[in-house]
């Protein structure tokens, strides 16, 4: 069955409204459970209506992906210990970032063209990859696979700055000279290193704030992917999560008596 783009966009609007109501609900104890269910319903609507899009011609890959991903997600959510929640959220968030990168790469190799689509592809790859590797470091630190203290080397901030500038230069290059796959992979590698180096120096105690910030990033990555595909659901929902995630990060910093700059640049909490 196929339906017109208008109906799909209306369903995306309904899903977006459910996400807004869901996030609003999650901020109050009384309505939190309902908020989560509303948001899940919104996601269900958005996913099902997308399957009816006319550009979808084969369902084998989709069904296999949904079954495997659904099973892994459900097992993780059921098996995890309550005390391990923060690292699970970090891991899930990393997967979200990874999904944005894979999606942006698929669009790129399918021949995305035009300044806006290519620029958005580059940004989705940059932000998504930073989210992926940064979240994996956060997970490894909380799971005690890595030392929970600050890991770093002299001149690290300078290297980070170079990686960021190099990534942005690669995006500009790809916009002007599309089709250079070496530059594309170079961008992926630089962004992956940037994600690692940004989170490695941050101590375990500050990790919840970092996960909240990376969650905000994954929203922005989804939004950038939305610009690549011209998809309103991704643009609206991604920017919604990006902005609300940033505010939540600030609130969490305040609750811990820390400033965001101190967390990000590895200044130790006084007396703690």
């Amino acid at each position, binding site marked *: 069955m196929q339906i017109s783009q208008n109906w799909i966009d209306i369903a*995306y609007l309904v899903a*977006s409204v459910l996400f807004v109501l*869901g996030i609003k609900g*999650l*901020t109050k*104890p009384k309505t*939190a*459970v309902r908020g*989560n269910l509303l*948001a899940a319903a919104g*996601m269900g609507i958005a*996913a099902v209506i*997308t*399957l009816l899009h006319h*550009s*979808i011609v084969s*369902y084998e890959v989709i069904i*296999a*992906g949904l079954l495997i*991903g659904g099973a892994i*997600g459900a097992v993780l959510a*059921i098996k*995890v210990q309550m005390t391990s*929640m923060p690292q*699970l959220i970090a891991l*899930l968030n990393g997967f*979200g970032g*990874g*999904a944005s990168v*894979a*999606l942006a*790469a*698929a669009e790129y*190799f*399918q021949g995305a063209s035009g300044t*806006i689509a290519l620029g958005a592809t580059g940004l989705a790859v940059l932000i998504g990859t930073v989210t992926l590797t940064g979240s994996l470091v956060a997970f490894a630190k909380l799971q005690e696979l890595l030392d929970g203290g600050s890991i770093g080397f002299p001149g690290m901030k300078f290297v980070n700055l170079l990686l960021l500038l190099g990534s942005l230069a690669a995006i500009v290059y790809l916009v002007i000279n599309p089709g250079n796959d070496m530059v594309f992979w170079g961008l992926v590698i630089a962004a992956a290193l940037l994600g690692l180096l940004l989170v490695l120096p941050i101590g375990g105690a500050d990790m*919840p704030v970092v996960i*909240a910030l990376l*969650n905000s990033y*994954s*929203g922005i*990555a*989804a939004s950038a992917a939305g*610009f690549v595909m011209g*998809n*309103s*659901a*991704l*643009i*609206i*929902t991604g*920017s*919604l*999560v990006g902005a*609300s*995630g*940033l505010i*939540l990060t600030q*609130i969490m910093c305040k*609750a811990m008596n820390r400033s965001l700059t101190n967390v990000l640049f590895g200044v130790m909490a006084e007396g703690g």
Partner: protein
Amino acid sequence: MDFVSQLTLFVLAIFLGVELITKVPPTLHTPLMSGTNAISGITLVGALLAAGHGAGLLINVLGFIAVVLATINVIGGFMVTNRMLAMFKRK
């Protein structure tokens, strides 16, 4: 959809997201983070479209990876948020 309409949606949704979060009791910080994380799995929509094109092996592989990762994010995210909130209720 033209770029200006896209940009309009983007900017308005940013403002909405900022206004949406005001006071959050500390016990809800983690569930809210987990819930919005699940919502950011909206990438699933794009992943489904990319995986369904049937446009060659590399695209299919990337689309498959995107669908798997986004589905883990969505299903795991909403289920674990629900579990956390259920725990608060019992207290």
